[in-house]
């Protein structure tokens, strides 16, 4: 099984097309939509995690590409700036999927695989060390 996160950008000609619906009907994948928005210019942005058999996930992304959906694959769903982080741990209790944890020595660890980009940790950080991908993109 593979889980891959992507920021999808739908041009104004695509926003009224049921592209995600087609994706789910045609491929055996789970799609978790973490964030979706349409701008006043009628462009659409969606942050998704697609999970399924490795080869099928590849095909699912090919399908999106064929439908002229622009894609960005963030290395991490959340931007953690370890230069600003002081390893206090104020964020960890707000990270329900336990992507942010402290190890035995108290050092902060970020497991991007577990992150669901809920962004609850961002306001909990007193040092501006956590930022969202979407904020980063805008």
């Amino acid at each position, binding site marked *: 099984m593979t889980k891959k996160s992507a920021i999808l950008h739908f041009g104004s000609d695509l926003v009224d097309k049921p592209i995600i619906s087609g994706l789910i009907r045609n491929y055996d994948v789970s799609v978790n939509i973490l964030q979706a928005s349409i701008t006043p210019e009628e462009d659409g942005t969606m942050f998704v995690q697609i999970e399924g058999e490795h080869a099928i996930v590849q095909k699912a992304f090919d399908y999106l590409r064929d439908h002229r959906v622009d894609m960005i694959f963030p290395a991490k769903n959340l931007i953690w700036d370890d230069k600003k982080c002081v390893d*206090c741990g104020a964020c960890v209790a707000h990270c329900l999927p336990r992507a942010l944890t402290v190890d035995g020595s108290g050092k902060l660890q970020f497991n991007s695989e577990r992150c669901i980009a809920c962004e609850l940790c961002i*306001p909990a950080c007193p*040092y501006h060390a956590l930022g969202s991908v979407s904020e980063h993109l805008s």
Partner: protein
Amino acid sequence: MTKTYEEINEKIKNGKAVVVTAEEVIEIVKDKGAKKAADEIDVVTTGTFGPMCSSGALLNTGHTKPRMNYKRAYLNRVPVYCGVAAVDLYIGVTAMPDDDPANKVFPGKFEYGGGHVIEDLVSGKDVVFEATSHGTQCYPRKEITATINIRDLPSATLLNPRNAYQNYNVAVNAHAKHPIYTYMGILRPNFGNANYCSAGQLSPLLNDPNYRTIGIGTKIFLGGGTGYVFYQGTQHNPEVPRNEKGIPMGGAGTLALVGDMKTMSRRYIRGVSMTGYGVSLAVGIGVPIPVLDEEMIASCAVSDADIMAPVWDYSEDYPNFQGKPIAHVSYAELGSGRINLQGREIETASISSMPMAREIAQTLKKWITDGNFLLTKPSAPIPGTGSGVKYHPFVERPVKGNK
């Protein structure tokens, strides 16, 4: 065997002092016993790093030409106190720009304030200074707008009225049905998390619980440079009930600290933004404790399991100054990531940084081991139990003539 400050300093100068951190000493005393450990070890170093709101910087800009007596002043738009002499300024870490939106859109972000100005100054960044005055015959100038930098200031002194709290509260949200935004961080409803803020077994005053060696004049690590304890901190309260080991069961002693900002580094002086609450400054502090005798090393061997912190409800009890702690939990439990409270498992989060506290204790250890940092004997102690010094709440008396 007992040791004097002079003997310990002699060893430091000769590169022969044995120095360990307040964490390393725990195992040593467990293995060898206090007597043997006290013979072998000369100094124990402590450390702490966390937001300390009662902090600020005393700056002197040097006189302008023509001369000016600042009456209203700003650094990077953050208001600065100028009710002192002509070109002296004090910037408190919780000061916010006059036009900061604060909590108008709740919860506010509090992106920049006094603590961030101090971080910028320590980093060597340029800062915009603006001031106005009424003008006098000896100080005629009425306004100035200029770029300043710490290297151009005749003096920049960190002057903190209350730091290094000996123990502190654990904060929970017991009653509100929504998250609350406090100086202890975000507290989720229904006991969603428990936030704490102390370096526990590494914390300076928890290793010298009766203030035997930490007193007025004690030389310390402050913000990456050197500083001194100049008095007990405000709200110093040695009379807080203590456990059988003599450790206060809540926030008790505090220290007032001073140091030259020009020797400090941004790594240990960081602006803090507490969402929905305000701005502050995280300060790194390390205090060396001379091992004068067996009793001294026994108190340095305190471990997180022995230090109990009170759990307070920050949704109703703390803000209304009412009630009592829900429970007491040890720093060992807090550090494990969860505490058990009234049958519930609650996730904990630390507001102070243990890795930074460790790094500070190790850095101070190196300074002393290398012979670059000598210990000072306090010129006077800070008040302990039985001294009569006690903190009490505000005594509110009505103003005469007001109904």
